[in-house]
């Protein structure tokens, strides 16, 4: 299946009554907006969580190195 993404503000070609396609009300339904917001929340949770995990791992390793040096 091919996907064709069409700009809603682009002018239609080959039409004697050339008009701009204005985004309809359905395009901004709360449900549609909610789905988009959910994806950005996911982005923050997934990448933010991974970045925090990486900071925590670095910190744990630093403590391990310090303990190792301190015990010599």
């Amino acid at each position: 299946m091919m996907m064709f993404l069409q700009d809603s503000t682009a002018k239609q070609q080959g039409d004697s009554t050339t008009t701009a396609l204005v985004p309809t009300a359905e395009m901004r339904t709360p449900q549609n907006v909610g789905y988009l917001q959910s994806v950005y929340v996911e982005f923050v949770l997934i990448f933010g969580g991974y970045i925090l995990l990486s900071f925590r791992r670095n910190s744990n390793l630093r403590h391990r190195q310090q303990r190792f040096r301190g015990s010599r």
Partner: protein
Amino acid sequence: MTSASASPTIQNSERSSEMPGGIDWLLVLALVAFAAVTVRSLVYTPIEVRQGIAQKIFYVHVPAAVISLYVSCIPSAIASVMYLWLKDERLDRIAESLAEVGLVFLTMVLTSGPFWGKTTWGTWWQWDARLTTTLFLWFVLVGYLVMRGAIEEAEARARLSAVLGTMIGLLVPFIHLTVYLFPTIHPAPVILAPQKPQMSSEMLITLLSSFGAFVVLYAALLRRRYRWATARDLQQQLENQRA
């Protein structure tokens, strides 16, 4: 571990195993770039005529998919094959880091896709070839990392991981071809297609900007992960030499 030439002296190890502190500027740059792309996507990119505002999920979903499959899994498989050939522990660390960061991006793909699917297909999930094989890849990557954590002996861990990592690489071309080989509701590639992209220039610029931001984020996470793995292995060497 496996390569004598790659095992430094204790003194050198102590210096190079130090975890770099301070601000990770590449990570900061990645987050700023992503924020800028988000603003461009939401404010300055036109709404798609049929799918509406939810189509903007495209600017997160597609770059994350391309990076996880083609920039993570394939190079991880190449590093795995090279490890089996050269037995260089750095290649094992590269493969491990690529696989883990790739898993994070693939998680983003699998969790953002259903929101877009619900809008355009009317369903959250479909057990078709593309979606199912991508989910399968996610489980294999999780298995790869769990397996690494379960094997104590470094050389055995690296060797078995390299074999599984190679298999992961073989899955990717198959996943790419599923949209051509099987009936599926998932669209064929828009960017990696033979013909020119079917979208307006503003949408294309936003998509390419998003790719750029995701690549910087990917590079920042990969660099952090690889540095941590290097410091961990050197620390382990020090502890083993002392024991």
